[in-house]
């Protein structure tokens, strides 16, 4: 009996694995990912959100029924969907030309534009809100000037359209980054064939180039949709409450109330976000975007004509000025003395910077450390999940993708409470204190919150990678593990880098989970420092100065990662190793 079992088990396992097109290595990867998600997302969030399904004694769906019976909830749902769709459209208008111009043409300062294009994602908490109001608000600089010169105001920041405007400026880099990575991966042979067949200009772009870069665009657009759908900072900044995310937030964060509706809304946000991403995946299904040639630097770079140059530089300058004006506002705020109901601050000073350099040096180092770790975890997990979901037939592979994606809709406060609830009583060895308030937990919380960004970028990169390259490697004797690390990952580098940068940049300004998990100034990141300053009117200047520091840290990190990627690519092409 035992002998029979002993011999049949490995055989059955092998045949199962074969049916799943998987190796033990894949199983290990799936196990790591699942363990991480369960430990740091499912269990902590579940421990908080179960209230939505609980009536005090037993399981219930009555709160969900209430949601659909409440007209303000229905209205909020439609408003959120409308805003998310329109924001994707607005962000596309900004991002697609920027991406195309920088990748397609020999363009001075392309790296600079790619770096500046990330900055809008870094909107320091509170400071960003104040700066937006000071620039675009009812009595912001632009409207005060318009009032002076022409006698009218533009409602940049009023109502749903205001939300669309601000969110579009804030989140278009998601599309820019992913689309640029995708464009750079297109096989130039495709373009040449099209040209040989007579296609050029708009036709070439709309029929060949853009469709081939579709995975990157869809990844970016899905992220913009999901993020806008779940974002609460902007609606709250504009005092728009008739949208789902602010409705959930207002209920979840009321002092001491356990209002189930807040968690019902959160759950519905998660479901709708996952559905949106799933729909975007469906739109790519049964189409092949993969090309075999790699490393030639994508599209052939073309020189711009004189008129084209003027138009291209003009558009780039306009788009970046528009997107970076809040950051110019933050910069002015950090050097200004008093700025109230005027176009510019009353006077300028360096005092705010001397204040923060006296006591904020540690914040900077902590932010780089935590966000670096978080972004690293994200791209590793993102690559694993994308690979398992697209290259193996493991059962439940899509669940991994969807659970990871669900993190996009989990409010930071809920994750923070969940982590405290699950891990606070776990003591670290050697008197290190509680695991929940250990600094590494902050990095983990960031990585959970930002995992969806990296995951979408990695998925898009893998969609463009032809399966035959891996098969070739395996035929030559490479194991699954070394195929993944030596072939797949290097070829996905552009997408992975885009994922790293978005995760890093957005984690640098995360506040709500930070506020719960930080216990000491010494281990606090920049966003916490900004919060502390922005609590009082006198702290506005120093808070803005810290905000500038956060932006600079992200910009430098982004620029460095591009440099590294460029050098890496240059080295490989020079050595004739282009693949």
């Amino acid at each position: 009996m035992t002998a029979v079992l002993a011999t049949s088990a490995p055989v059955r396992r092998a045949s199962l694995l074969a049916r799943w097109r998987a190796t033990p290595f894949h199983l290990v990867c799936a196990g790591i990912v699942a363990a991480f998600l369960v430990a740091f997302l499912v269990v902590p969030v579940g421990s908080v959100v179960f209230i939505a399904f609980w009536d005090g004694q037993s399981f219930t769906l009555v709160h969900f029924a209430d949601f659909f019976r409440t007209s303000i909830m229905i209205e909020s749902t439609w408003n959120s969907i409308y805003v998310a769709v329109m924001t994707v459209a607005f962000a596309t208008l900004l991002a697609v030309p920027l991406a195309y111009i920088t990748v397609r043409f020999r363009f001075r300062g392309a790296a600079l534009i790619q770096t500046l294009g990330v900055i809008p994602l870094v909107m320091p908490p509170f400071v960003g809100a104040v700066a937006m109001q000071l620039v675009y608000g009812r009595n912001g600089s632009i409207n005060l000037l318009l009032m002076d010169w022409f006698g009218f105001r533009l409602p940049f920041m009023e109502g749903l359209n205001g939300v669309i405007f601000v969110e579009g400026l804030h989140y278009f880099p998601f599309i820019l980054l992913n689309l640029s990575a995708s464009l750079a991966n297109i096989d130039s042979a495709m373009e040449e064939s099209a040209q040989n067949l007579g296609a050029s200009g708009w036709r070439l772009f709309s029929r060949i180039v853009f469709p081939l870069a579709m995975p990157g665009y869809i990844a970016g657009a899905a992220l913009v949709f999901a993020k806008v759908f779940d974002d609460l900072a902007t609606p709250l900044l504009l005092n728009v409450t008739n949208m789902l995310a602010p409705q959930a937030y207002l209920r979840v964060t009321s002092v001491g109330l356990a209002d189930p509706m807040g968690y019902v809304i959160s759950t519905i946000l998660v479901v709708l976000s996952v559905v949106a991403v799933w729909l975007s995946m469906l739109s790519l299904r049964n189409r092949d975007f993969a090309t075999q040639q790699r490393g030639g630097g994508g599209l052939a770079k073309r020189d711009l004509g004189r008129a084209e140059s003027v138009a291209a530089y003009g558009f780039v300058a306009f788009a970046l000025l528009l997107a970076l004006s809040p950051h110019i506002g933050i910069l002015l705020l950090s050097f200004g003395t008093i700025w109230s109901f005027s176009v510019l601050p009353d006077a300028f000073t360096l005092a705010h910077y001397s204040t923060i350099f006296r006591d904020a040096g540690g914040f900077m180092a902590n932010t780089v450390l935590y966000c670096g770790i978080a972004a690293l975890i994200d791209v590793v997990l993102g690559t694993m999940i994308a690979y398992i979901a697209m290259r193996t037939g493991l059962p439940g592979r899509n669940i991994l993708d969807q659970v990871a994606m669900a993190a996009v809709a989990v409010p930071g406060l809920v994750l923070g409470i969940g982590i405290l609830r699950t891990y606070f009583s776990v003591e670290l060895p050697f008197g290190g204190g509680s695991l929940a308030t250990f600094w590494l937990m902050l990095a983990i919380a960031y990585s959970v919150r930002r995992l969806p960004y990296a995951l979408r970028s990695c998925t898009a990169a893998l969609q463009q990678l032809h399966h035959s390259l891996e098969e070739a490697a395996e035929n030559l004797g490479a194991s699954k593990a070394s195929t993944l690390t030596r072939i797949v990952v290097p070829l996905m580098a552009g997408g992975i880098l885009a994922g790293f940068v978005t995760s890093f940049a957005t984690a640098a300004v995360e506040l709500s989970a930070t506020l719960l998990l930080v216990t000491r100034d010494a281990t606090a990141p920049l966003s916490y420092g900004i919060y502390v300053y922005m609590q009082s009117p006198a702290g506005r200047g120093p808070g803005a100065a810290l905000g500038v520091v956060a932006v600079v840290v992200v910009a430098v990190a982004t620029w460095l990662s591009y440099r590294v990627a460029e050098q890496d690519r240059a080295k490989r092409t020079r050595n004739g190793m282009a693949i």
Partner: protein
Amino acid sequence: MPRNTRRQILAAAALVPLLAAAPAFAQTLEEKLVIVTSFSRDVTGPFVEAFQKKHPGTKVEIQSRSTTAGVSFIRETRSNPPDMFWASAPDAFEVLKKGNLLQKYTPAATGIAQRVGPSPVNDPEGFYFGFAASGYGIMYNTRYMRANNLPVPKEWDDLKKPAYFGHVGISAPSRSGTTHLTVETILQGEGWNKGWATMLEIAGNFASVSDRSFGVPDAVNSGQYGVGIVIDFFGLSAKASGFPVEFVYPTITTMVPANIGIVAGSRNANAARAFVEFLLSEEGQTILLDPKIQRLPVRTAIYDKAPAGYPNPFKDTSLGSRVTFDNDASETRYELLNSLFDRMITFRLKELTEAWKAIHAATAAVERSKSAEGGRLLAEARRLATTVPVTEAQAKDPQIAGAFQEKKPDRPVAARQAEFEEQWDAFARRNYAEAKTLAERAAAAR
């Protein structure tokens, strides 16, 4: 039961240093004191510095968290909690107290006022202690007022004037314990129906309802809108930091204490008690006069040292003394009031302000036309835009008010919150739309 015994032991331990008088603290203080606070560094810094100078053996650690995050943190860290919670909102302390998360203490300091405005300075059961008072009032941006030719407001009623349309801001009472108290004070001062009518008419002039208390002074400081309904220190400290703003107390205002409490299970309870005593001491109370802090001391003798014109709620009888505050009524309808305000104002601000815009226009038109029909229609429009769907008696009814409170086994089962909220929302939309139509007809009537 074990919890009670522990508390008695702690209470007994607390008595020992008290009997030995203040200097004895020095020998028994722990090396560390962890304080969770929602106050800014401008406020906490000077206190911490002075305390550490006085008790060099104790290192104070400040953890800055928003009030919500602070309450959640203390709730989730029972096994090794911070030592103190230090914040404004009395309701946050009530939540902690009800969750058995605070410990009892009786401060030894003398010369502290018993009451400020409508409320006692200390929690009557001894779980948290007021160390400063603050009152609600009106803050305005002087540059904005000049540029828009707005008169300076002095009373709540001034804010009803059509001149202020789109110029006023407030934070939602569900988001800010102090705004809640202001609304409750207006309701108690003017009566439920008249109070709501005042509130809704002022709300007709709102530019926005902010989700955090600090959003209002932020917007007034930057000049996004001109007038904000805020707690005094927001206005006074912004002025002290150089912003072109002023602050006034209206006649009907309320004074609320800002509080500190010792967390149950604190491992540094002696240091925590010493910190309470320090806050209440002459030295600690004097720090409140610092221009960056600007809160009102609860030790009455300190006002002799204050600069001229410093508000004194214990002398100036207009500050908070006009209203006798019914704490029980306030507590019963606490959650209901927050929700009602959100349904009637926060979430339907667009509809509400449109209705009031039409009413203001119709009022001017009817004054010119002297049309009787117009007057009748206008009165009806006003009635619709100043009525709430809940009577004072209903707000007290446990069947209704209970629906908004936490479910507890000993409370009767009430109807569901979501059902009431849907009814109120429908009521608000219907009334505001109808008021707008009626006002437009009134304006056209001849």
